[in-house]
């Protein structure tokens, strides 16, 4: 079985370069998530700083968790908070062109969907975007944001209400 992220982090406590395995495995995903939220230029800065902070904090990583991506995306989410103005501008602009990237969705529907995300309170928006643009499960979002799974569910529930959808909870994905 291939070494897990936890294996690499454990090894990196004595051999720092071993953290490179975590970097190689997840830099793309962290960069992509940041890029979706704040654009390609800031994405590199955010992703690089997320890994720098992760490396500095690796002694506190929960080694019972084989996959470090939720932890890394949680660090990136914290970093992205300082760029809210940029993110809001991008969401507002992207709303107008979003339909171009999806088949079968009219421009007005796409614009309202993205604009609705921009209007969400921060705590709900972060949970929604980790779920839909980083593909994290409820349990993974809970790890990323250091909140209980119940809190994830309630924020998604309230976000669905704000987004105008039927507030029925989705089954959790492992």
């Amino acid at each position: 079985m291939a070494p897990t992220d936890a294996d690499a982090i454990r090894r990196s406590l004595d051999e720092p370069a071993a953290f490179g395995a975590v970097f190689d495995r997840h830099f793309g995903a962290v960069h992509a998530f940041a890029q979706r939220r704040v654009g390609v230029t800031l994405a590199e800065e955010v992703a690089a700083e997320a890994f720098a902070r992760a490396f500095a904090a690796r002694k506190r990583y929960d080694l019972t968790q084989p996959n470090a991506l939720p932890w890394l995306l949680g660090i990136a989410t914290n970093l992205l908070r300082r760029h809210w103005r940029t993110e809001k501008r991008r969401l507002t602009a992207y709303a107008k062109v979003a339909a171009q990237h999806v088949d079968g969705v009219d421009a007005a529907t796409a614009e309202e969907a993205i604009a609705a995300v921009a209007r969400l309170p921060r705590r709900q928006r972060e949970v929604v975007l980790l779920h839909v643009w980083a593909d994290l499960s409820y349990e993974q979002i809970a790890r990323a944001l250091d909140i209980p799974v119940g809190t994830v569910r309630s924020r998604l529930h309230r976000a669905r209400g704000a987004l105008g959808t039927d507030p029925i909870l989705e089954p959790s994905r492992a």
Partner: protein
Amino acid sequence: MPDLELLRRLAPPVEPAPRRSFTPPRPRRRAPLVLTPIAAGVAALAFAVAQLGGGQSFAEAAIRAAEASPRLLVDGWDVTRVDEWDAGQGEMTFARDGRTLELRWPAERDKGLERVRGDVYRYPGSNDFTAYVGEATVRGTAPSADAFAEAIKRVHRVSAEEWLRALPGSAVTPRARAATVAEMLRGIPLPAGFKPPAAAGETRDRYQLGAHVAGAVACAWIERGGEQAREALATARSWPILLEMNAEGDYPEVLWSYADAVAAHGEVPGGKPGMTVEETYRDALGC
């Protein structure tokens, strides 16, 4: 009506991540610092002066920092906001007759734009325009491409002194930083020996500087720990700078949630098993 599956499908397209490899940073050695506890305001000013370097004048430092910026102004438009969060990175907002322009450096190129003319682009079907002026991106809404291009013609580079004079009251220049930081610290209990965050030489937006300063205080108390720290952080909802900032953004709410967690004896709000305030506060508060 939008649903989560629709949002998933509407995820913005992304470019491949640049090829990078990881190099572990070298450990840094820090000299131990010993400070005699003195009045916090005086300490803040003394420290700020020391960070600007002994006999240097504030004006020299401000001009040197301004020289590192693109120093662009728009003729006939007022600067309403400026923030440089790092060397060579920042943004400005200009306003005139109810319209706004936003300028950001370094330039960032968005996908999905259609070229209108020359270096002017537009989001299709909208009146949101973008242009690339030297090392900066300029964005704004205009009734037409001609009107936007007319505004872009007014963008010009100025001297450091002229740029600094044009900045709004919300901009905190290096010259004003020490006094502003001291003012932001008023009404906030400080741990003995507290050192405000060092000046980096850039001009900061007041809100962003407030987050930097209030965050440094909260982090210092969390690191100190104990009953005195809990009592100090319990006052966070009355800190004047946070009350001012709360009308503009979310940072105060983040800090207050950590103050509440410290009052609950170190548990993260909601209590994720095994994780404490001590293990998460640096990322959350930006220490």
